[in-house]
């Protein structure tokens, strides 16, 4: 594993001062790679991302233990807009474009941290180069874009701040498989071209393990499994519970009633 760009060290997150959501999570995102964080609904994946970007504080959440570092700079407890200035961009689950703004205005807002107007312009052109479809829709109100276009816009908007780390929350949510392929292809290209480090939260484990180098599996606020994407793909528990394959590798059939009797081998 290369130089760790983003390091999370044993953090605990508490909501409303009482609800313990993350119970000691540690993970690394190596520079210029995609690291994926897998897990079921409510496992704490999105909370982990929000802890990193700092927006947790707007939801009465707080990192109470441990530390989060960007390079060797500690960022836990910082305000979200300061975190953005340091080079972390978050792409929210469900796209969350600024619906009443046009495509291009969304990008301008995304480039808020840039000082000069010229660099904003450059940034917009760069995003259009990656996502030509956004250029066609530049003056359209973004609330009326299709789901795939909105996801592209959300990623493009995050790119505008010229981040070193991108937190990508369920980019495949609600999109057709072909679009998912297209978007992951572009993310892969971004990592290669822009030396971006990506922390990818996904439910679509098959897709995530295909593009990622390293992966973590989360359950009930804890990391229960970690390894290279290749080794995770081969792990029999992952195959069973996240990829929906049986031991031979063929797709599982619901006729096979015994499947729910199998227990996961890790403790959660």
């Amino acid at each position, binding site marked *: 594993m290369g130089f760790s760009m983003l390091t999370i060290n044993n953090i605990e997150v508490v909501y409303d001062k009482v609800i313990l959501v993350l119970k000691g999570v540690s993970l690394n995102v190596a520079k210029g790679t995609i690291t994926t964080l897998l897990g079921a609904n409510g496992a704490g994946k999105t909370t982990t991302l929000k802890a990193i970007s700092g*927006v947790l504080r707007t939801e009465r959440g707080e990192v109470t233990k441990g530390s989060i570092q960007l390079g060797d700079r500690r960022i836990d407890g910082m305000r*979200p807009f300061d975190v953005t200035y340091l080079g972390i961009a*978050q792409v*929210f689950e469900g796209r969350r474009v*600024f619906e009443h703004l046009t495509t291009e205005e969304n990008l301008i807002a*995304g480039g808020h*941290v840039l000082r000069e107007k010229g660099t904003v312009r450059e940034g917009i052109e760069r995003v259009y180069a990656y996502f030509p479809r956004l250029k066609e829709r530049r003056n359209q109100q973004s609330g009326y874009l299709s789901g795939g276009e909105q996801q592209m816009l959300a990623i493009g908007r995050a790119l505008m*701040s010229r981040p070193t780390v991108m937190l990508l929350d369920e980019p495949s949510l609600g999109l057709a498989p072909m679009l998912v392929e297209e978007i992951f292809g572009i993310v892969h290209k971004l990592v290669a071209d822009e030396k971006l480090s990506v922390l990818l939260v996904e439910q679509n484990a098959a897709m995530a393990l295909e593009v990622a180098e390293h992966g973590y599996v989360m359950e009930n606020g804890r990391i229960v499994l970690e390894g290279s994407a290749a080794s995770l793909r081969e792990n029999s528990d992952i195959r069973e519970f996240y990829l929906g394959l049986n031991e031979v590798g063929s797709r599982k059939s619901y006729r096979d009633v015994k499947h729910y009797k199998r227990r996961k081998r890790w403790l959660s």
Partner: protein
Amino acid sequence: MMIDELSFAFSLVVSGLSIGLMYSLIALGFVLVYKATDAINFAQGEFVMLAGFVAAGVAAVEGMPILAAIIAAVAVMVLFSFALERVVLRPLLGRPIVAVIMATIGLGAILRGLPPLTVGGQTQSLSLPIGDEPFVIGPAVLPPIQVVGVIVSLLFLGAFTWFFLKSRMGVAMRAVADNQQVAMAMGINVQRYFALAWAMAGIVSALGGVIWGSMLGVDTHLALVGLKVFPVVILGGLDSIVGAVIGGLIVGVVESIAAGYLDPFVGGGTKDFAPYVLMIVMLMFKPYGLFGQRRIERV
């Protein structure tokens, strides 16, 4: 006879339009705050009144140029709005919207009570050095203060429209209005933009206070101008600058025509009544107003 009728109607419309634009200016303060911060400011009229008192107070000092009074009003209102946002409204962030509404209603009551306590209840005059030569457009005659009001309103409405549509800060402010959490993640200091919105509301209140104050005289009744803000913003849409302009024009014309034609029969008061009838009808048929944003539901 016919000609007289027409010219009477024409002058009512012209006077209504000019008054309407001045309503727009005040409604703009309300719209800016609602758009950026989701807060409904029921004390907008009292802001205007406060600005009027500040301007009149400074202008009353011997040898003080009127420009100093205007600058003082703007400065005080900006500082006042900043302080209000910081002290009263920020702690209410994330609370139900009713909390903010009640806070501003209470604030309005306090502000209305202040002048009688401090400077007394009598009407103070505030006169701008613009002469008394009325401005004539065909059969319509406008007092000079209304002409000034129209010019100032158009100037600021234009400036704010440019700000929101073309400047990066304006786009950021609209982003804040759209989704605060995401805006924050884009590196936008949301609270700073809240303060900016309030400051802008302070500026338009100050200008409104000077203009309305010199037209009606400065006393606590000046706060009643704020009552016209609600029909204006409901008609135009709570979060639309264009809506504030159009809504203001409509309310101005409607009340002017209502007053011109109905007052002789009912003995007055239709001016304050007609805009609210219009508002209720609007709420029944188009609750977002003419230009208000509706929630986008994609299926």
